[in-house]
């Protein structure tokens, strides 16, 4: 399927080269997003592990740190 772009105000079909470049970027962007999401998820898991060891909730931890 041909992708569309707006070129300085004009909506048009992407050229073959433009679409190839865009699709390559999409794959990289998707991989980057997954990496960022994994870092956030790992951090959340590590945080919960600490809370579990302390036996307190996140709200209680926030009260302590506030």
């Amino acid at each position: 399927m041909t992708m569309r772009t707006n070129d300085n105000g004009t909506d048009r079909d992407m050229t073959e080269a433009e679409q190839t470049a865009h699709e390559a970027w999409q794959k990289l962007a998707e991989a980057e997003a997954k990496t960022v999401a994994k870092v956030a998820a790992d951090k959340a898991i590590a945080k919960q592990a600490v809370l579990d060891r302390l036996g307190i909730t996140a709200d209680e931890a926030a009260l302590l740190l506030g």
Partner: protein
Amino acid sequence: MPLTTYTAGEVLTAASLNANFTFAAASPTGGLVCVKAETAFSAVASFTADNVFTSTYTNYFLSLRYTSSAAAPFMQFQVGGVAAATNYNYQLISAESTTVAASRATAQTSALIAGDSGGDFKSFAYVNISGPQLAEPTDYISKNIRNATGYTSPIILDTHGNHSTATAYDGIKVLVSSGTMTGTYAIYGYSKTV
């Protein structure tokens, strides 16, 4: 033609007055000066604005009213129509209901500027860009309100970052990693004179 200043007793002609109006229109001072008129785009995967960054301004303001069908808008700087696809770094904070989250992304292929609207829910972002036309790293601050899949679920996304390549750029590309986006954008330069 330079601005004409009149003295007492001089005859003011229509041609001279019109020339002054023309001069004033071409030489705005103060505030934001539009360098890219509001431009509509419809169901596209990207849009580009060339020749918008010049030595006339150091800082720029991009306003973006949009909807997106599947993914968030990112930006890349470009020169001569060729986009730079390395060295974007950003820190973001998002607030969704009572949940505030933060994350950082480095060495990216593009810079996140807004979130996905999840359909036809008008969302808005403005991006302040500092020094894109300088052969120095470029900084940006993006503020975004997205109405994700509905107007009763507004989400804040603040993204601050940089493009660390020391290259002078003349244009910008905004693109989504899947699906399409529809909306309008405009670009302004911050005047350097009073």
